[in-house]
């Protein structure tokens, strides 16, 4: 009797311990992920959270929004927000169209050189940007597109990932459906536009979010191509801006917060798709 009771208690203790680990460790990891953002918010409401020699003041004693006003008074700050949104949306919209057109052809059409072309495009995934970026700079310069929106938008459209993704997705569409639409007198583009694209919505959502996110965060290419202040994207603008307020961490944090918020809202709305968008490469790979 006592032995059974003891074993039962042991098992219960073991289960409780397991639950503590299962919930405790991810909880700590979540805190570690979020803590720097909480720090950012707290610091953004004061000019002097840190003065050498004094203990750091985490909680603002007299919260101020002057820091935010200082950011908004920066000549081009709102322009950078607009540039980032405009460039990321444009790249996303155009990439969705042309990359899904290419993906569709690779998935559903027979033509000479198909496999060779596909391998050629796919191998582009391994090419580091350090190799392509110098000649790309020259090409964009020769077209007279330095410091222009097309200069920011065109090169990222050539990233091969989307073609690969859309091909994988469109291979799952039933070919009979596409034939039927053609027999009904739909043109090739009509079939693609009215049948293929609507059926590919989940794939397009994933690709769209992936592309938008990559563009929103991109730094190296905009850094090189947009040298005029008014054409900088947020990351490039911020990389210069924060050096002008070297010791005023409050203003720096306010700028970071304002730069994160627009996309954070998008993220909270489409979170499910985001997570799918980030993992789809892994599942296919």
């Amino acid at each position: 009797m006592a032995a059974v009771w003891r074993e039962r208690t042991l098992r219960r203790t073991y289960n409780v311990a397991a639950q503590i680990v299962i919930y405790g460790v991810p909880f700590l990891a979540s805190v570690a992920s979020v803590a720097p953002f909480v720090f950012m918010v707290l610091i953004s409401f004061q000019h002097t959270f840190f003065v050498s020699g004094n203990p750091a003041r985490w909680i603002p004693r007299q919260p101020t929004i002057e820091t935010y006003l200082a950011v908004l008074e920066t000549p081009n700050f709102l322009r950078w927000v607009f540039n980032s949104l405009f460039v990321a949306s444009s790249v996303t919209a155009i990439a969705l169209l042309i990359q899904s057109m290419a993906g569709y052809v690779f998935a559903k059409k027979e033509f000479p050189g198909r496999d060779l072309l596909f391998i050629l495009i796919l191998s582009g995934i391994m090419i580091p940007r350090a190799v392509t970026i110098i000649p790309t700079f020259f090409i964009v310069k020769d077209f007279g597109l330095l410091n222009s929106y097309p200069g920011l938008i065109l090169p990222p459209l050539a990233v091969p990932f989307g073609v690969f993704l859309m091909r994988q997705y469109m291979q799952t569409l039933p070919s009979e459906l596409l034939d039927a639409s053609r027999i009904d007198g739909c043109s090739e583009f009509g079939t693609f536009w009215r049948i293929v694209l609507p059926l590919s919505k989940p794939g397009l959502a994933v690709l769209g979010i992936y592309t938008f996110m990559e563009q929103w965060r991109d730094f190296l290419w905009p850094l090189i191509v947009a040298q005029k202040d008014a054409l900088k994207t947020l990351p490039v603008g911020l990389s210069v801006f924060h050096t002008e307020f070297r010791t005023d961490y409050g203003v720096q944090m306010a700028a970071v917060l304002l730069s994160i918020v627009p996309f954070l809202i998008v993220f909270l709305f489409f979170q499910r798709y985001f997570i799918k968008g980030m993992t789809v490469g892994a599942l296919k790979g």
Partner: protein
Amino acid sequence: MLSRRARQYLTAYGFLTPYLALYVTFVLLPVLWSFYLSLCKGGLLSGTEFVGFQNYIKAWNNSLFIRALQNTAYYTLLVVPLAMLSSLILALLIDKMTPFWQNVVKSALFLPMVSSVVSLSIIWKAIFIPDRNGPLNTLVGVLGIPPQNWLGNPDLVIPSIVGFEIWRGYGFWVIVFLAGLGAISNDLYEAARVDGANAWHILTRITLPLLRPTFLFLLVMGFIWNFQLFDAVYMLTAGGPANASATVVWYVYRNAFHFENLGFAATMGVLLLVIILIMTVLQLKYIPSEIE
């Protein structure tokens, strides 16, 4: 009149043309051009001149390039295993949580992923303040560790950036592992349990072997991405102190756009491409992704 088949081919090429034109202009042509540039010397302003394989010999003898290569390797060899192990453990635990809490944790871990490296670096530069009262120093002070110059100490700067990169990226690693775990059929677990397998057996005989494709994906992509580290170095240290944190891409950027050394920059880019290619092929060849 074109035959039906010819028309079909033309349609296919027509659909491909917009993307292909961009791919040729901004990927294929630049790669070939870089190979050519790597055989030249000169810069953006002075123009280039063909010199043959000189740059490759120069790279071999350039202590800064070798240093950048070592830094890049050191950095990658720290990030990939640490991120892999910690995110695997985390994913295994999260997998056992209720769906509601899973989503809460996923959102928290994903938060750094939606911000640019520039934004995150600005936050972390403040966290890394080397003063005794700096945020991170205050935190480690509680554990009895003396204040550190996180980004200014040559021995500490790479581990500090590694910490930042793992913090920034582990949400992604965890979510990839969770997707891999979700793809394992429940029947397998049921069958194992019926056969009397304990938790340890299930983990080592079913879960881990079936996660092999996920491991391989993260390994290959982890190497490809981390060998191209640039943003964090640009923002946090500018390669310093005394080049202790300079990476290959950082050095390529400096040579191309600041030192007027286009040919040499292209050479280093080509060498990076070759290294990444060899690593990827070796990993895909010698690490089996299938389950025996």
